[in-house]
């Protein structure tokens, strides 16, 4: 076996030990490695190498498939992420450009008055309106005074405005 750093060995030892000691250590190492060179390990059999190559070829094919699926999965995840980002940006933009919804007044009394109060008041208003209507229709025939009619109308208006005020 070649030793790619053989020429630097002494220099390397001198960084840690005094020159005489470094010289001795370098010799010991070279001597020891010489023993390994003189006793080479057996080589792998040709049949073993052929068998490994066959196994490796199959494993490489399997690995290529895994890598391909992995790449596809990464791309799909990236595409899904891009779609999510686009959708959220579009939704934000749409939210900004949309005019504000007007708040209808009808919503308020419903929230303030409960159903029972509402029904009572509605009945009162209807009753008052009916009275006004009856007065108007009988104005000339039954001798009701103009002032009574006006009073009633004021009452109706008052009840109605109280209702809407809550």
């Amino acid at each position, binding site marked *: *076996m*070649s*030793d*790619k*750093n053989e020429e630097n060995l002494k220099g*390397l*030892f001198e960084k*840690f030990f005094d020159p005489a000691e470094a010289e001795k*250590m370098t010799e*010991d*190492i070279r*001597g*020891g*490695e010489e*023993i*390994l060179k003189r*006793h*080479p*390990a*057996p*080589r*792998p*059999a040709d049949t*073993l*190498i052929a*068998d*490994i*190559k066959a*196994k*490796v*070829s199959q*494993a*490489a*094919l399997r*690995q*290529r498939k895994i*890598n391909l699926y992995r790449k596809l999965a990464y791309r799909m995840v990236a595409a899904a992420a891009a779609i999510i980002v686009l959708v959220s940006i579009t939704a934000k933009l749409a939210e900004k450009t949309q005019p504000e919804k007007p708040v209808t007044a009808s919503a308020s009394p419903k929230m303030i008055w409960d159903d029972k109060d509402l029904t009572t008041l509605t009945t009162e208003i209807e009753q008052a309106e009916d009275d006004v209507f009856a007065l108007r229709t009988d104005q000339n025939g039954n001798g009701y005074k103009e002032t009574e009619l006006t009073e009633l109308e004021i009452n109706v208006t008052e009840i109605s405005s109280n209702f809407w005020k809550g």
Partner: protein
Amino acid sequence: MSKSDDLARIIIGCKNGDSESFSRLIDIYAGRCYGYFYRMTGNKEVSDDLLSELFVRVVEKISSQKGGSFEGWLFKTASNIFYDHLRDKQRQKKLLELEGNRPEIKSAETERLEDDEIDKLQKQLKRLDMDTKELITLRFYSELSFKEIAVMRSEPIGTTLSKLHRGLKKLRELMEQ
């Protein structure tokens, strides 16, 4: 084209999953990796299995090898495989002991035949502690620099130098006995 350029091209081919590149990689490194496994285990059959396992693992993991020395990475993988094997062996031994089965005891004749098959160096390497044996074997078969070996073993370079020096000196003494 230089040797390193050629190797770089082969590694790129391997990373792309090219079977021909893997075949060339095996031709380049099988001998040295086999030598490492054989010197660590002293057994040809086990070395055969570990070498197969190494190259299959190379196929699976080569895409994670980024920069640095390829040989450093390859022999680090080989070292991991060897230690995995050692742990499995110890686990099996413990399991057999727990089940009340005594581990197989080799007869003197079998041991003598096995000893005839392995060389003197192998016998003396067996007498060194595992860490020193691995350091000597790794240095010799991986052809890595001391700096690379120190990085691989996560220890200061001075420690690596001292350990290797002590180990080789001891081996030399054992071989001269």
